[in-house]
């Protein structure tokens, strides 16, 4: 049985790299990514599971890193926005200007990226179901929708 009682070294696999970090059991994954590993792409918004700004991938699935403990991430593959390079959804976001202030963008991109990997030809209802997990305070939803459609085309899904 694995246990953590105090500050301990944790080995995490993030963006394909092994990262060692000293954590306490009460550290959230979001906190460790941002404050201890310098991966500031995932953003703190509500820290309550509502807004999706902190979305990262765990074994390819989108999760909200504000309500996951860092110790829970042990043994799983974590991908943050820093781990994506020139993916179809990133290109589509730029081409469609799918951001204004950009605060929600990493969370949206991680969620869209996971969706397109899982269901490349996602239809309107599926896109709506997945992306309803993220909130954009600048309300740029139309452009985000266009970006998803474009990414599907770029990736050859449609």
């Amino acid at each position, binding site marked *: *049985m*694995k*246990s*953590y*009682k*105090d500050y301990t070294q944790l080995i995490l696999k993030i963006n394909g790299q092994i990262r060692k970090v000293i954590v*306490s*059991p*009460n*550290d*959230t994954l979001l*906190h460790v990514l941002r404050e201890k590993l310098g991966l500031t792409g995932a953003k703190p918004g509500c*820290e*309550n*599971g509502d807004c*999706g700004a902190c*979305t990262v991938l*765990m074994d390819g*699935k*989108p*999760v*909200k890193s*504000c*309500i*996951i*403990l860092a*110790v*829970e991430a042990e043994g799983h593959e974590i991908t943050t926005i820093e781990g994506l390079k020139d993916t179809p959804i990133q290109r589509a976001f730029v081409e469609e200007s799918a951001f204004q202030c950009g605060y929600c963008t990493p969370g949206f991109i991680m*969620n869209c990226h996971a969706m397109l990997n899982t269901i490349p030809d996602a239809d309107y209802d599926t896109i709506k*179901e*997945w992306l*309803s*997990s*993220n909130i954009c305070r600048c309300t740029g939803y139309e452009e985000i929708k266009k970006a998803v459609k474009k990414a599907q085309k770029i990736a050859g899904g449609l």
Partner: protein
Amino acid sequence: MISFDFEYYRPDSIKEATDVYAQLHEEGKSPLYFSGGTEVITMARKGALKFDALIDLKNIEEMNVYRKDEDGIYFGANMTLNEAAEMKDFPLIREVVRTIGDHTIRNRITLGGNICGRLPYREALLPFLLYDAQVYIAGINGIKALSINEAFNKRLVLSKGEFVIGFKVKESFMDTKYLNIRKVKTSEIDYPLFHIASIKDEEGIKIAVSGLCAYPFRSYELDKHINCNSEPDEIINNVYQFIPGTIKEDNIASAEYRKALFELNLEKILEKWGEA
């Protein structure tokens, strides 16, 4: 960030989990079981929940499986809501869990955590109440199986150190017809004003409700009342005698509004079953 310190344990078996709970308890600590963590972390961060240790159940294999047994289909308590939604055997379970939270959060919320949680809604419970599922409970003295309708009274009644390892539903319910109505105030991603799930089998119409009172419920008296041969109007006029709690009044809706909407939708359900 959670503002207090605690220990974290990740047992690999049911026995390790109950043993570590007993040991921590003996040491005078307050341990808490933990699965998806969405409620525990949120409440702890807000200072609404305190504990000295978390016992993470996610490594217990028995709790992560979905399988067909001779006497029914077993859902491990650690299945996330999205995993449960992928299982197509019971369309009502699929439909109910897909309305909870949002798609990303459903990658973490577990069946066990939702059903054993402290918040009033616990919507995943509704189909299991209607199907009179067996709930498997582990404790220091081993595993017991109970009817969920016996084990649930405002909350799943667990003794100190006990936790849920899974649920079993009879295959005969697979084709049972159902109706499911969930009303929210504005956004689809919100806790419900109320959620009524209903099935009809050879015993008649059965309903289970979340959001109307401070806890979800299925009441045999209510089922009996709904199945009496009275006119829908009369059934609805007398329905509150059989609802086991006061109607919720909060910043989302007044009790009067909830009641009016509930009555309208109950009528719809009765009409639809009448036509079926």
